[in-house]
């Protein structure tokens, strides 16, 4: 179950400069845990003190915002791309 994770600019210090890394996982939560295990620091950056995704962190599985699905329990199919995108944009 390999998933491609797209890493935003400021977090590429955690991945040795890579904008994409491959990790294992079947849900968004599992993928992000695996990401943190392989490249420590992601959990601290992405989650607040209550263990929820931070307000200005958007996570997409393919084209879909996980907040419209099952959040961290959203399934991530094998071979799919998970994107971590800063929410600061818009009109």
């Amino acid at each position, binding site marked *: 179950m390999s998933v491609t994770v*797209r890493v935003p600019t400021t977090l590429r210090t955690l991945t040795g400069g890579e904008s994409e890394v491959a990790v294992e996982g079947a849900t968004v939560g599992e993928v992000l845990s695996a990401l943190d295990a392989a490249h420590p620091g992601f959990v601290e950056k992405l989650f607040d003190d209550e263990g929820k995704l*931070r*307000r200005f962190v*958007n996570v997409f599985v393919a084209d879909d915002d996980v907040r419209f699905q099952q959040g961290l329990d959203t399934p991530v199919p094998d071979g799919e791309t998970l*994107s971590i995108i*800063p929410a600061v*944009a818009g*009109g």
Partner: protein
Amino acid sequence: MSPSDRARWLSAPGLACGVAVRCNGGVSAPSELVCRACGTPSATAEVQYCAACFGPVELRTDWAALAGTVDRAAIDAGRGMARWSPLLAVEPLGGDALGDAPLVRAEALGEQIGLGSLWLLDETRSPSGSFKDRVVATALGEARRRAMTVAACASTGNLARALAIAARRAGMAAVVLVPDDLEPVRIAGLVAERATVIAVRGGYDGANRLASEAAMARDDWAWVNVGLRPWYVEGARTSGWDVARGLGWRLPDHVVGPLASGSYLRLAHDALGALAATGLVDEHRVALHGAQPAGCAPVALAWVEGATAVRPVRPSTIAHSVAMGDPTDGDDLLAIARATGGSMVVVPEEEILAGVDLLAATEGIAVEPAGGVVVRALAQLAKSGVLRADEVVVACLTGAPSPDSGASAAAGPTATIDPTLEALEAVLTE
């Protein structure tokens, strides 16, 4: 901020002079980049979000420190939004020909809905037809400082038009990402301004998400409402300052405006308090009221529920210019409305065009549907007694309607794509 970053930052034009000594006639206000959510100073001017919490990075100006350095007469003598340069963190590009939206006394509309001192900030008179000229001017002011040559954005239409016109005048290329259901006449207008128009499937939120990714891949481009967002939102302050100046250098009791991302209304309102801190107007609490159409009302729904955080929605509204389901500034607006005695209002979709018509009939001002939302919100607030007849109320009309659809719409977008970086790269490298 590291010493080397700070040195580079401070060496930027317009930021090199201190508060007391104004260089080159006093171009811009000294300011620093700080995360609005957690207060962490930004270590770099290259990223618009906080390295610690992903929150929005914005320019923070010490308004009180500017007291005594600017006076009303000098501002009155200036031209366009450039008159506000001493208070802005960036010199707006072409600012002497933009801004100055008239603040008009709306006696006929006020009489209809029961408001005795109603004023309208008519941003429809801006060169591109919306307030977006202001925010583009400040963003491109920063882009010029960085010698960027391509201007880009995601837009529901108004921003794309403002960007296309400003970029063409500045000799920059323009790349605009718009929803694929944008009216053909608006797309044709962008093509006529020589913009590269990419229609993106998935509505504005799809285009916006793609712009966020593309801004990371092409950070040498001036993505005005993404990478340059701290400078972009700064331009909205001038709307607030035009309100205060239009009222004869005083603050209103209420400001009512539409909200999409919410940045316009938040910054225009914030600018009023800032102006008081500089001593240019007397302190006065200004209640902030936001208006949203029922088909896209995430902030107003949170308000009704008494929530402090906004949950995103999937938009379905005729007011396309405010169809943003995931408003960046939503949580802040809820807090500001609460702190100032303001409110958030939901306007039923079926009332929106009646609002547009009422404004045209009473004041002769043509607005896009978002303006109809504001007019109906005014009527609701007046009827419920939130706005009283003897109070000074300012409503912001942020954009003009689409051009007459009878015009030629022959020119289509350069391409229509799915909201993926691969698709965008394929189009742009063709």
